[in-house]
C-alpha cells in the first residue's frame, strides 16, 4: 500500500521540557482510515496540527505524499484538508457561497472550483438550505457542510479532528458512512477522537496516544486479540496501565 503519510518521531514542546507530543511515529496508506485515540490532553490535536502545518514541530518530521511538513509546508497543504474540532463557518455566508469560497482556495481553475462545489453540495445533502445563511444552520448541518468542504477536493489526506463530536446519532452515522465510502474510493483519513466506539466502527487502524506518547498502533481487531479484550475501550485501559501512564 502506498504511504500517504509518514510521521517520524514528531515532537512538540510548548514549555522547556514539557512535551505535548513526544517522538510520535506512524504512517497511513492510501485509502486507509487511521485514528488517533486518547483522552483530553493526550496530544492528539497537537500532533494533528503539526501534520496540518498549523504548528511547527520541535523535533522530527512528517511526510505527506512525500512532502515534508517542515521543509515544504505549502506542498503539504495542497495535499491535505483539515477539519478542526468544533469548527464553525462564516455565519454571514450562505452554505453555497462558503463552499465556493473554500473551493476557490483549493481549485486550480474555475471549472475545478465548480466541480468541487457540485461535489460538496451533493455530499452535504443540505438541498435548498445551502442557499440559506450558515448562521441559521443547526450544529449537525454545519458539521456536514464542513465535512463536505473537507473532502470536496479529494485530498490525498483528510485530517478530521473529532468529526462527529456533539452530533446526534443519525448525523454521526451519516458522517461515518461518508468517511468509509470516500476511503473506499482511495482517500486517506487521519481521525482524532476520544469516542472509542466510533473509532472501532470506522477505522482500519488505530494509534493509542496518552500524555504525548503514542503507545500502541494496530488494527482494531489485532489490538483486541493482543490484549484479549472485547472492545477498544478495554484495549486503551490495558495499554495505559501497562505503560503506567495514569
Amino acid at each position: 500500500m502506498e504511504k500517504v503519510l509518514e510521521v517520524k518521531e514528531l515532537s512538540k514542546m510548548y514549555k522547556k521540557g514539557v512535551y505535548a507530543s513526544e517522538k510520535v511515529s506512524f504512517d497511513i496508506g492510501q485509502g486507509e482510515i487511521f485514528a488517533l485515540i486518547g483522552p483530553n490532553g493526550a496530544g492528539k490535536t497537537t500532533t494533528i496540527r503539526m501534520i496540518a502545518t498549523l504548528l511547527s514541530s520541535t523535533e522530527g518530521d512528517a511526510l505527506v505524499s512525500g512532502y515534508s511538513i517542515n521543509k515544504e509546508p505549502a506542498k503539504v497543504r495542497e495535499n491535505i484538508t483539515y477539519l478542526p474540532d468544533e469548527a464553525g463557518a462564516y455565519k454571514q455566508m450562505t452554505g453555497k457561497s462558503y463552499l465556493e469560497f473554500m473551493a476557490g482556495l483549493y481549485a486550480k481553475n474555475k471549472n475545478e472550483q465548480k466541480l468541487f462545489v457540485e461535489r460538496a453540495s451533493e455530499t452535504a445533502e443540505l438541498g435548498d438550505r445551502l442557499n440559506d445563511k450558515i448562521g441559521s444552520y443547526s450544529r449537525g448541518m454545519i458539521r456536514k457542510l464542513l465535512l463536505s468542504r473537507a473532502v470536496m477536493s479529494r485530498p490525498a489526506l483528510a485530517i478530521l479532528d473529532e468529526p462527529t463530536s456533539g452530533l446526534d446519532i443519525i448525523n454521526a452515522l451519516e458522517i461515518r458512512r461518508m468517511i468509509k465510502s470516500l476511503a473506499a474510493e482511495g482517500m486517506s483519513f487521519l481521525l482524532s477522537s476520544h469516542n472509542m466506539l466510533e473509532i472501532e466502527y470506522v477505522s482500519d487502524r488505530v494509534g493509542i496516544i496518552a500524555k504525548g506518547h503514542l503507545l500502541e498502533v494496530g488494527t482494531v481487531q489485532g489490538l483486541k486479540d493482543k490484549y484479549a479484550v472485547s472492545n477498544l475501550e478495554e484495549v486503551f485501559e490495558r495499554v495505559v496501565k501497562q505503560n503506567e501512564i495514569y
Partner: protein
Amino acid sequence: MKFTNLFKKELKELLTVQVLVSMIVTMLVLIFVGNSFGGIIEDTVEEASEMTICDRDNTPFTQQLIKALTVSEIDENTGLPLKYDDSLVTLVDIPTDNYIEEFKRLDINSVIIIPKGFSDKIAAGEKAELINISRMTSGATLSNISMNDAAVGSIREAIKQSYIVEHGISLEELGTAESLVTVQDKTIVADRSADVSSATIASLTSMQNMFLPIVVYILLMFSSQMIISAISTEKIDKTLETLFSAPVSRMSVLCAKMLAAAVIAALNAVAYMIGFNYMMKGMTTGMTSEGSDAILQQLGLHLSVGDYALVGIQLFLTILIALSVSLVLGALAKDAKAAQSLTMPIMFLAMIPYILSMIIDIKSLPAVVRYIVYAIPFTHTFTACDNIMFGNMKLYFGGMIYQMVLLVICLTLAVKVFTTDRIFTMTIDPSRKRKNKKGFKSDAQDGQTD
C-alpha cells in the same frame, strides 16, 4: 431574596476585571489630561495676562495710557488705582512694518502698536488707530487666548475718561469719546498675514479643527474593532485553522484582512468626510462669507486638495498602525468577551491626543508631557490638519516618518504572530492567574494538546 440573587449574579457578570481595568484606566487618562490642561491653562492665562506694547508715539499721554494698563489693584470706593505691576506690560521696539520678521525676531505672539501721532490725533479730537497684531500657531481653543482685546478696551476707556474730563459731558461728546480709538487688526500665520483679528480666524477654523479629530477617533475605533472582531471570531470559530491549512500562504490571509479592513476604513473616512462636510456647511451657513474664505486662503488656512492628501496619508498610516496592532490584539482573544475588551488599549491611546488636540496646542505642552503625547502615533494624525494649516511642516513630516517606522515595527510584529505558532498558542485571560493558583493548567498545556 430571589431578586437579590439575580442582582448579585448580574453584577458579577458585568463587573469583570476588564471592566474594572477600563474604569481605572479611563480615570487615569482623564487625570493625565486634566493635569496637562491644568499646567497649560495656568501658563496660558499667565501669558495672556501679559500685554506686549510697541509705543511708536512715545509721548507723556501714551506713557500714561500704558501705565494705566499696569494697574493691578483698584480702590473699590474711589475707583482709583492702588497698585501697579510693571510686569503686566512688556514694551518692545518694532521699527519696521515687516511684522512677520519682527515677530520672529522678538519671539512674541501678539502686540499692540501705538502709531506715531496717536496722541496728537486724540488731542485734536480726531480718530486715532491702534494696530492689534496676533500670530496664530494653532487652531486649538486655548492657544488663541490673548489680552490684546482687553488692552484695547482699557486704552479706549482711559481715553474716554480723559476726553470727558477735558471737554465736559454731553451725550454727543460721549459718543465721540467712545469712537475716538479705532483698531486695525492683523493676524500672522506662519509667513503670511491678513487684516483680520485672530479671534475671527479662530472662530472660522474652529469647525475644521473640531471635525478632523472626531473623524480620526471614530475611524480608529471602527477599524480596530472591526479587525479585532474579525480575527478573534476566526480564531474562536477555528475558521482561521481551516484557512491556514488550505493551500494559501498566511501572508496572503494577513494581507487580505488588512487590505479589506483598510478599504472599509477608507470608505468610512470618505463617508464621514462628506457627511461632516455637509453637516458643518449647514451649521456654519451665514457664519462664513466669500470674504472670510478669501482671508483664510490669504493666511494659508484653507486646505487645498494637496493638503487634504497630506492629511489623508497620515490618516491612512494611523489606521494601518491601528489595524496591525489590532491584528495582534485580536489573536489574543480567547472568547468574545475578551475580544470586546481588547479595543481598550487603542481607545485610551486615541483618547489622549483626541481631547488634547481639540483644546490645547500640543506644541506648547511641557517637554516631558509633549514627548509622551507625541510618542502616541495617533497624535500626529490628530494634529495633521493644524500642522499643515499653521505651516508646522517639520512636525508634520517628523510625525509621518515616526508613524512609518512604527508601522513597520507593528507590521513585523503582526507578521511574526501570524506566521508562527503564536497565532494559535497566545491568549490573554485575566482570570488565568487565579486559575493557575488553584492548580489549573495553562493554555499551552490544556487547550492546545487534546
